[in-house]
């Protein structure tokens, strides 16, 4: 039983990084294949939304892997291939959207929110800090009567 569990765990661990590209699709030239894979990892599989065409098993992803490789073999540059696909599928095909007016919110938004949050926190703590100096920081010193009572209590203890 334990052996089976171990075998299963090992199989799962080993199967995780397997690529969807089947060997028949791969280019013989390792340098070109590496380029195709790098390019493919940045291209969205249009039917699976959040996977790249290199990772996906979808038919369309397979077609695009083949087309990307065809164009690489034909001597097209990475930019030319990217432009080819953006012309047909829009910026959405890029897993990393380009910085444009329409995507500015996407890129700048999180940082803008962070700055806003920091400003709000700064304002909040500054206001609280000011209020803090007005409130007594240390307890008021003991009055004479209190001191005498404290002395008396301490003496009692001895």
């Amino acid at each position, binding site marked *: 039983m334990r052996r089976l569990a171990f075998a299963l765990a090992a199989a799962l661990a080993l199967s995780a990084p397997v690529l969807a590209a089947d060997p028949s699709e791969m280019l013989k030239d390792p340098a070109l294949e590496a380029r195709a894979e790098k390019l493919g990892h940045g291209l969205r599989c*249009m*039917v699976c*939304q959040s996977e790249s065409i290199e990772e996906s098993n979808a*038919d*369309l992803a*397979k*077609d*695009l892997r*083949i*087309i990307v490789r065809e164009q690489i073999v034909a001597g097209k540059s990475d930019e030319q291939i990217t432009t080819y696909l*953006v*012309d*047909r*599928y*829009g910026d*959405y095909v890029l897993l990393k959207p380009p910085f444009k007016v329409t995507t500015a919110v996407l890129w700048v938004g999180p940082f803008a929110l962070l700055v806003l949050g920091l400003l709000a926190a700064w304002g909040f703590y500054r206001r609280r800090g000011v209020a803090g100096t007005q409130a007594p920081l240390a307890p008021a010193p003991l009055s004479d009567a209190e001191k005498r009572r404290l002395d008396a209590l301490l003496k009692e203890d001895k």
Partner: protein
Amino acid sequence: MRRLLFVLPLIGFLALVAVFKWGLGHDPREIPSVLIDRPVPEMALAPLPGRPADSGLATADLKGRVSLVNIFGSWCIACVQEHPTLVQLKKAGAVPIHGIDWRDDPAEGAKWIARNGDPYERVGADPAPGRTAVDFGVTGAPETFVVDKNGVIRYKHIGPITPEVWKTTLLPIVQKLNAEEMKK
């Protein structure tokens, strides 16, 4: 001012609810096509086996009349669902419909049409890896493009055409495009 600060989270929450509600009503697969208002891609697709030699689909075939270009395949289940509507449109003479048999064995595509009815004027074969379909920015089947008289793509419908879709979405577009003058 103080009061406002307490209302702020509530306003934020309501804004989020509005965004989620809007998002839920959206089909993430419906990606706006970048091909709208662009000419039909260059293509010269072979006819399906057993059909007339001149019944393939080329770019020039889509000029002169408003037409539909329907992406289908014999493997596509939703296409079977859609098909009777196309056949009916053909019978009614509503609009010329052309087909692209996508990612398919052309012989299977021809059989599929023989079995399910033939609403198409022209059918081009685009076997895997479907280069013409990629040129059309196709992400799945069925998809249907409305092409105007100048051979420019004017609308893309993702998913099956139902009588409802035809009546409320496609027919008004076809009528509008029919009324347009052809550019010389």
